[in-house]
């Protein structure tokens, strides 16, 4: 076991992939000498050279589009998009090309492209630097979307993404880049399957499903609830496409109450999808409606008021009270 931050864990995971897979390479803006704006690729260019750690022109569609071409030639490119709000110039390439290539070629072509996107708010940043656009991508068949919440997952999930033959978007919780934790560099252990959810805390009265940056918030809320005598189960979803509904359903069958939380707006979001699936699969187990705790239907607000926008412990506890009152 080694202690490191999420940023360092991704760095180590990328290093491991570059070492083990000669066809793996990194592309993005400022990822070379600078090591990326979050230093996630720090030091990799000096170790692997500019052919495998590629500082690209400042053009997101160009990054994704050329990555697709390289994948068609047999490479496994890992693209860094600098910030969540800047993924949209690449949205066309991701949704109309990358997601469909395998399908439209009748399975003859695979495009194992990984797209890393630092996402989410809570860092006091300016416009376009705090968004959570995961639902827009989850709606597109052909993509896989994962989001680690701790260093161990981060280390293994980035490597699993590189190994996957499908395109994978890795949403990295940027406000947790400096969160430290234990990483087992020798074995993924419970992280063996990146598309499976994990029960992080067992409980009997209600379930909170969270992912990415809100996992620590959900755990803190569960601790606070325990002080009031309520036993809350916490699930780290880990994968947003596919979603591990089996784990979520099993939990709801036990607790009877479900709260889903994410920073993204609730309308049209992942929480709604989970609520719908759970109502189909575990209707008779539900003691209360599924409650979503997420962002409001507004452009991500200015930094000075983001605290009121982001789900926090109190909002989760308020939702829990409502669920328990049913």
């Amino acid at each position, binding site marked *: 076991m080694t202690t490191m931050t999420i940023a360092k864990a991704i760095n180590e995971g990328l290093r491991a992939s570059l070492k083990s897979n*000669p066809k793996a*390479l990194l592309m993005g803006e400022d990822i070379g000498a600078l090591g990326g704006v979050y230093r996630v690729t720090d030091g990799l260019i000096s170790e692997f050279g500019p*052919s495998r750690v590629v500082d*690209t*022109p400042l*053009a997101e*569609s*160009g990054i*994704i*589009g*050329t*990555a*697709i*071409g*390289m*994948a*068609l*030639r*047999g*490479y496994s*490119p890992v693209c860094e998009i600098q910030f969540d709000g800047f993924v949209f*110039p690449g949205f*066309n*390439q991701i949704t*109309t*090309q990358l997601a*469909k290539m*395998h*399908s*439209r*070629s*009748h*399975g*003859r*072509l*695979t495009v194992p492209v990984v797209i890393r996107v630092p996402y989410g708010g809570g860092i006091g940043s300016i416009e376009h630097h705090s968004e959570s656009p995961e639902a827009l991508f989850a709606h597109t*068949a*052909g993509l*896989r979307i994962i989001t680690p919440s701790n260093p161990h997952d981060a280390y293994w999930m980035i490597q699993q993404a590189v190994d*996957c*033959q*499908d395109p994978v978007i890795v949403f990295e919780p940027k406000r947790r880049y400096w969160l430290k934790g234990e990483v087992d560099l020798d074995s993924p252990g419970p992280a063996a399957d990146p*598309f499976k959810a994990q029960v992080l805390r067992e409980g009997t009265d209600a379930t909170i499903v969270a992912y990415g940056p809100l996992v620590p918030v959900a755990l803190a809320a569960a601790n606070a609830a325990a002080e009031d005598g309520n036993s809350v189960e916490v699930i780290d979803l880990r994968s947003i*496409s*596919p*979603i*591990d*509904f*089996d784990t979520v359903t099993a939990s709801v069958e036990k607790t009877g109450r479900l709260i889903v939380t994410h920073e993204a707006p609730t309308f049209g979001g992942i929480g709604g999808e989970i609520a719908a699936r759970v109502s189909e699969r575990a209707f008779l187990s539900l003691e209360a409606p599924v409650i979503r705790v997420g962002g409001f239907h507004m452009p991500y607000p200015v930094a000075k008021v983001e605290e009121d926008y982001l789900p926090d412990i109190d909002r989760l506890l308020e939702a829990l009270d409502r669920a328990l009152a049913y």
Partner: protein
Amino acid sequence: MGATHLPSTEFDGTEVDEQREASAETVLGGPGVEMVQLLDVDGKLGEDEVYSSYAKRLDPEKLRGFYADMAAIRRFDQEATALQRQGQLALWVPLTGQEAAQIGSGRATQPQDYIFPTYREHGVALTRNVDLAELLRQFRGVSNGGWDPKETNFHLYTLVLAAQTLHAVGYAMGIQRDQQLADAVGSGADAAGDAGERAAVMAYFGDGASSEGDVHESMVFAASYNAPVVFFCQNNHWAISVPSTVQTRVPLANRAKGYGFPGIRVDGNDVIAVHAVTEWALEHARSGKGPVLIEAFTYRVGAHTTADDPTKYRELAEEAVWRAKDPLDRLEKHLRTEGYADDAFFEKVKDDGAELAAYVRRTAYDLKSPDIRQSFANVYAEAHPLVAEELAWFEQYSAGFAEEAADEASEDAR
């Protein structure tokens, strides 16, 4: 007159109109706009300092081949249009008028080169040995692709304009890395081969797509990494109903200058010039000298697609002007004047065309509708629980109908 870079205070738009008219002449090719042409409209072969040497590589056999290819693809185009009119295809994208641009460039590629077409490159497909009947699959609604790109190094058609130009550059960047990997293991000379055996990439797009941001980004990336890619723009003058003068104020080939690589306008109805220029560009790319932009100056004689009606937006007189520059007529004149081909040859080409048309028609009728299970099968390369769940539901749902049918059948039997 004040400084010319300042906006005029008396601005009323006239200057813009004048400028646009002036630029239209440039875009459309007036005097003073350089364009490589070897075979003139009368079929006479001219001289060019650079490209004549390429033209001299073409023996009569090759030239007859070009003609046969162009005639075949034109016949195929007519047949596909007819199939659409008869309801056998949902849509067809005709290429008539652009045969020289496509056959000339396609025949300049080597088997190891990889081609990214847009969606009108049926002629290039022919040169890459794509079964032409397979091309119809997409337009008949039985496939979103149709052929195996790995077999022919001819990528699937891309319908989102210009997206493939970036794929082409990325693919070319992959070729560069293959060579580095080969060099690294010390087998550079053998594995990567000499310049003649190295691969390059062709990226096709049109005058309309030239306005897409992806074309710009692809040229920036190609220039930055000196990628072995040839951008082949068929300027057929019309993006559905919008003329090329709306897309550009300068000849499209001139744009290459801004990116720092060569740009060449070639007479797109001159198969010999197109072939020569493309061979030069591919050699340039393969030998590590970087990208080239070719603008093939041609004309879409027919409609954009079978759903289009050009009479609504352009003059018949304009079409007539371009019909007079027909790429097949021009080469036929040349072949006859030089004594490279006789009536028997042209008769045979006609017969071969009829045979191809019959084959395509027969095969198109036989293109089976796929089963939606195939669509389920290829959403992802690796197992995916949601797809599996929805497929299982579909199987169960379909089985219900089968049971119903069986019940009805047994009831009827009673």
